[in-house]
């Protein structure tokens, strides 16, 4: 099988992993290549996702039989395996032409977790030591491998992670019967405890599949919140379930639940940068996000009695919770208002989206609208009309994520 055919098979079987981020590392020690702390997107695929890394599997041969996975053992698909040298050649030649920031290597499980990890280590060792490659490498650890292997691989890569895949143990049993939650958490814990500038400098991330199992948004967000806390994750990726197989335990979907995925990403963003807690956003009586309004607006509409806020005096935390004000504009407001009183025009210059924010703020005591308009049904209608026009802010929010 020639290298082109292998690439076709092993990129195709790797594409369902949502992560392609190349951020969080400042590697400068390679003779060839370095990393950019903020990450760089080199292209965008037809589905609008950032392409930053050469995302491939070492092999799509797999002894496991996860129901949702294209590579599962019981599927009759063409199988391939890269040699370490082949992976090095593609990575290096793509990198020097500036197609990519580096490599994202994952693998099906061939023979055993240990055996698979050994092959991955060999590949990345070759890349780092023979070719002196200093670009970004993200590797997926194989659950069930030895601690020694984690240690070795972690010292070679920028990011080492394991996927939670399904938000509860029951779903895991149902859809990924060979996988054990404890083996995944063992990896995540190992990375957390050992992470430093020489061991997975860019930390770890994880992924959950959305909509293949029955969990609510509340279940999923709780899982995320706990994982951020327990494992100091850099990111949780949410991957709308793409139906590739048929199985009695899988839902029947025509389209992946993309809107839902988007809401989860927005909420995740609120957890990480806006000091929200899951309990602010969802509860037992409202376990799922409103598909029509984004989570932050939704929260504000449910707390209208706390608004409007005076931008010249409210706290940073209060600024963050105002729809239309982001982290950057909130910071700018805080530093600027020490020197002068802000008016609506100044807010615009700082990047505040007045169209959204105007309902929730006053500037020097002035409210931009007729005060009687501060009613949730009016705002909701207007914000919703806004959103409908630009497809619920889909593209814009996502741009922040990569």
């Amino acid at each position, binding site marked *: 099988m020639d290298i082109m055919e292998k690439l076709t098979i092993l990129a195709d079987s790797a594409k369902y992993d949502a992560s392609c981020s190349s951020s969080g590392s400042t590697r400068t020690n390679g003779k060839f290549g370095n990393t950019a702390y*903020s990450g760089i997107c080199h292209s965008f695929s037809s589905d609008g996702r950032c392409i930053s890394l050469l995302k491939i599997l070492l092999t799509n041969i797999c002894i496991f039989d996860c129901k949702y996975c294209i590579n599962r053992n019981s599927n009759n698909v063409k199988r391939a395996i890269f040699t370490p040298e082949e992976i090095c050649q593609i990575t290096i030649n793509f990198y020097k*032409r*500036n197609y990519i920031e580096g490599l994202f290597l994952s693998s099906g499980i061939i023979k055993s977790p240990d055996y698979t990890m050994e092959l991955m280590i060999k590949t990345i060792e070759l890349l780092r030591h023979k070719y002196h490659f200093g670009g970004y490498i993200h590797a997926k650890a194989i659950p069930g491998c030895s601690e020694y292997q984690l240690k070795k691989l972690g010292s070679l890569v920028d990011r080492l992670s394991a996927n939670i895949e399904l938000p509860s143990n029951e779903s895991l049993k149902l859809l990924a019967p060979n996988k054990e939650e404890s083996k995944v958490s063992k990896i995540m814990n190992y990375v957390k405890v050992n992470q430093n500038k020489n061991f997975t400098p860019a930390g770890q991330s994880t992924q959950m599949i959305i909509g293949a199992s029955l969990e609510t948004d509340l279940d999923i967000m709780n899982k995320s919140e706990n994982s951020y806390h327990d494992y100091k994750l850099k990111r949780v990726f949410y991957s709308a379930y793409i139906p590739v197989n048929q199985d009695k335990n899988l839902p029947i979907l025509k389209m992946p639940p993309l809107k839902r995925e988007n809401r989860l990403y927005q909420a995740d963003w609120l957890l990480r940068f806006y000091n929200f807690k899951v309990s602010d956003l969802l509860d037992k009586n409202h376990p799922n996000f409103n598909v029509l309004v984004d989570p932050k607006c939704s929260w504000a509409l449910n707390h209208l009695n706390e608004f409007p806020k005076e931008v010249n005096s409210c706290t940073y935390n209060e600024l963050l919770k105002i729809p239309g004000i982001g982290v950057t504009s909130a910071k700018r407001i805080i530093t600027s208002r020490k020197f002068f009183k802000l008016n609506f025009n100044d807010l615009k210059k700082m990047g505040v989206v007045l169209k959204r924010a105007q309902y929730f703020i006053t500037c020097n005591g002035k409210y931009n609208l007729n005060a009687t308009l501060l009613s949730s049904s009016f705002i909701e209608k207007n914000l919703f009309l806004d959103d409908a026009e630009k497809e619920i802010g889909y593209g814009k929010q996502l741009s922040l994520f990569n």
Partner: protein
Amino acid sequence: MENNYPYLTNQVYIYDNDFISLLSLIKTLLKNKIRPYKIEGKEYNPSLFENIINIKVENNSNILRELKNIFGKENMQIIYYVYSSCENNKELVIYYYLLNYFKFKDNLIRMRNLRCVSEALRIKEKVAREAHKFKGFLRFKELKSESLYAEINPDNDILFILAKHFQKRLKEFNWVIKDVNRKTYAIYFSQKLYFANEEKINLKNVEFSKEEESYEDMWKEFYNIIGITLRKNDRCRMNFMPKKYWQYLIEMEDER
């Protein structure tokens, strides 16, 4: 834009189309408390009512260091980015930015209610955004000599910023980046970085290495495969990667 200097509405000051000579001119203007109506490059065609004023500018090769000591590194970087932009009034924005520095010192950068500050920062962010995009979208091709060659067509003059980026990244290679619109080149050869104009360069008859085509094919194949059909979203892709970048993107060849 706020200051109290005498102001004649038709005085145009000319500089030599490079950063150093602009800084030297502005320094002279500030020193002599002259408020220019316009500052323009030397190809400028004055209108009937405008007067080109020639003033004696002291040329000082250390001016960069000198100004850095006065204005600080961050402000100098902002000014450089503004200078690299394709904005019409960039020279005046720089002039007023520096002028206001004397009043507000290191707080200036936070005074976004001043127009020169909000303009300078807006332009700087615009240039930085374009440079960041090109750090990803630039494509090298491998020549027979094993050197790498790339062409770009940015709106702003970001060649220097890009060259600095690749100097760190591809330090063991030889490479050339050509800004097609400005006909300028960044050349990195034997670990040294040079900049040159078209006259000094002969790039006729370049041949690509024999591997070049097969890696381009692999990249195109990878690109086509990695998109998930059920998630297809042209609008989103267009947001992140507008058509103006496609010209040199190998993977977009078939869709151009």
